[in-house]
């Protein structure tokens, strides 16, 4: 009996639960920086996880650039800044994770064409648990409008 329940639970997981997972992770406020062909851009967005369990963003894929990497900007002493590739971004249960300038970002390295303000960039996001999400990101020089 117990075995049967396990099997049913397993099938349920395969068929329904995945769908529920993918619906519970959503993306908002996405934008990418303008940059010229051959150079680099960065993409930013907010990941919303309404699930009661954590997840991770493990990969971003785009045909706009030769390479796409998950990056974080870090600060060291004496006002020094750097950035490095990281393997994943943790998304805790019931939380929002913001990718923003000076922090987490998706690096679009070696752009295949110029991207300017009227363009958009396609990005496929792969998660550890949730289904992958395809997003279309507008290119914006967003800082122009929000001095800080």
């Amino acid at each position, binding site marked *: 009996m117990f075995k049967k329940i396990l099997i049913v639970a397993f099938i349920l997981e395969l068929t329904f639960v995945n769908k529920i997972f993918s619906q519970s992770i959503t993306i908002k406020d996405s934008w990418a*920086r*303008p*940059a*010229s062909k051959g*150079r*680099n*851009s*960065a993409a930013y967005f907010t990941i919303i996880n309404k699930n009661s369990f954590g997840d991770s963003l493990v990969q971003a894929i785009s045909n706009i650039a*030769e*390479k796409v*990497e998950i*990056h974080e*900007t870090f600060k*060291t002493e*004496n*006002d*020094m*800044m*750097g*950035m*490095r*590739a990281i393997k994943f971004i943790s998304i805790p249960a019931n939380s929002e994770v913001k990718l923003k*300038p*000076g922090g987490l*970002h998706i*690096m*679009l*390295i*070696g752009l295949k064409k*110029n991207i*300017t303000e009227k363009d958009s960039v396609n990005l496929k996001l792969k998660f550890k648990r949730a289904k992958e999400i395809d997003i279309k990101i507008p290119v914006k*020089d967003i*800082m*122009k409008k929000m*001095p*800080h």
Partner: protein
Amino acid sequence: MDFARKILKIMFNLKLNKYFILLTIPTTIIINSCGKNFPVIEDLSKDKFLLVNQDSNAVIFPENFKNKIIVIGYIFTNCPDICPLTTNNMRLIQEKLSKEMISDVQLISISFDPLQDSPAVLKDYATIRNLNLKNWDFLTGEKSTIDSLTKKVGVVVIKSDSTMFDDGRKIYYYVHTDRIQLIDKEGRIRKNYIGSKINIDEIINDIKKLE
């Protein structure tokens, strides 16, 4: 000078010995002219860094900008996260200066990655952002020149991570000082700011004090 006058007034009120007053005057003047809030951080007036701008025109820094206040930011164009914040802050400073009709200011962005950042790359970087280059130069140069310049102005640049493309090309990222500097009309660095987080009103007020 207000400070010096105040001290003098107090001294006269106290009817202190006039010799003591005579001794005090030079000291107060020295304190004032050094500008406690505006110490000279580094004097570049004797330096002649031979650089080139986004249009491939030769530029001698800081000599060619003498009699202008310089706002200078340090960037590399492969950095799409922090450096654009600095560049954007330079743009905001430029806009505010023009709004306040302050015209004797030159903006300069210097690349500390000259092997990647040719004049053409810098030109693209400015064009794609619709930057107004009327009083703004993007400078690069020989690597040895850039290295000695960054050393002199106190900007630290350390090669760190890299990305290798499929064809074997490699680009480097740098850990670097996040910096905008204010240089007076005599070519002396007077104040350091955090490039990506600079307070625009603060530097505009500082520029007014140096004018």
